[in-house]
């Protein structure tokens, strides 16, 4: 049992993109703020801070979650993947490559959330059809694109991922 008083901090261990971070955080701080401010990974964006826009989506133990709706202390001992963890050095993740090829995004603000949601979508359903893609991505808002280019990007990602798998059975 632990109790943390107002103003006090609690030790938290977060493994983010494969790297372990031992942090002291005030329990009221959101996971998104800790990722952005304490760990310095500003690729995760905050669009609403009340759970609707999806810009802050990260993977927690492989599953997508709104990092604005988690306290960092709730993520203690979890593995977190953020947008910075997708590319392999200069090599883009196939989903990033696909979005590039499809002119997926414009201003880029919603982008981290869409990419993380797409990773989760394709790991669960590697061959989604267009309406499944639209339904599954409906938890992420984009104000710029009208979504078509993003949906195209997911379809392109499906073929890139299939190609990649075909190459290394």
């Amino acid at each position, binding site marked *: 049992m632990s109790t943390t008083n107002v103003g006090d901090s609690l030790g938290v261990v977060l493994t983010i993109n494969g790297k372990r971070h031992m942090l002291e955080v005030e329990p*009221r701080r959101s996971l998104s703020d800790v990722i952005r401010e304490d760990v310095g990974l500003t690729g995760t964006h905050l669009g609403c801070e009340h759970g609707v826009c999806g810009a802050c989506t990260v993977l927690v133990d492989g*599953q997508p979650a709104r990092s604005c709706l988690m306290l960092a202390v*709730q993520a203690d001992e979890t593995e977190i993947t953020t947008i910075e963890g997708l590319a392999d050095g200069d090599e883009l993740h196939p989903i990033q490559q696909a979005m590039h090829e499809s002119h997926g995004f414009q201003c880029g603000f919603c982008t981290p959330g869409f990419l993380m949601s797409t990773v989760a979508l394709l790991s669960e359903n590697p061959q989604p059809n267009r309406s499944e893609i*639209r339904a599954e991505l409906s938890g992420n808002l984009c104000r710029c694109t009208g979504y078509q280019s993003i949906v195209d990007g997911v379809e392109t990602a499906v073929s890139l991922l299939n190609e990649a798998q075909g190459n290394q059975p």
Partner: protein
Amino acid sequence: MKNPAFIYHRPVGLDETLSLLADVGHDAKILAGGQSLLPTMALRLGPPEQLIDISRVPGLDGISVSATGEVTVGALVRHATVEHSADVGRYAPLVAETMPYIGHRAIRNRGTLVGSIAHADPAAELPAVCLALNATLRAVSTDGTRDIPAAEFFEGYLQTALKPNELLQQVTFPAWPSTSGGALVEVSRRHGDYALVGLACALDVRDGVVASASLAFFSVGSTAQRVSEAEAHLVGSEPSAELFARAAEVVSEALNPAPDVHGTTAYRKHLAGVLTERGLSQATAAIGVPA
């Protein structure tokens, strides 16, 4: 939009949790998945002074099925786990059918079924499902254990029969006879939104006539509610489009939902009727068919 300060407790056992609740329950809220609590905290809408994070309390994360087919879901079981549970699909098909309607995947990965029930949002699906299925809600505290029938649990807007010192430990959905069919129908403005109006219904048909019926609506008032007039109208008759149409009229008549920015009273009354017909015919079709 940042959370206000609070005292944070993270108990690691049920007893600890209950004695904490006994001590500070009046000023504290339980933190389960946080998908309803944290947005209200960030908006600073009457936030609690203390949070009790139950995520490390063992024994609350199970789904079990009794020998008689009752399904029990513990306080830490997330929506996504329920959604993907074969047992729930088989023994509580209406619950399984409901899950995809709740928000979006990222919300379901964190939010808990029991948390949604404890939160008692009148627009949420699960409280209505509990009412429709006559679920039993188990509250525990240092004073002991109470089993509360769903019909007595939801008292008002975000108000339940839980006392400040009580934890909602689990919910049990009664066995689902093969003669029953259920349906969850709703209309929302966008995919994944809370419903404009929704209906959880269950129909038990024996020897060609309706033996029992339950119609529990959500987003129609300060709590989810059953419409007993319409249920009474159904019982004893053969299921038919005409019967359902008449039930729909009774429903529209009986409900008086308050207007909000998303829909007027007249619209919601109308929608409740439309959903009654839709839900009842789907439920009839579902009899004997596992979800």
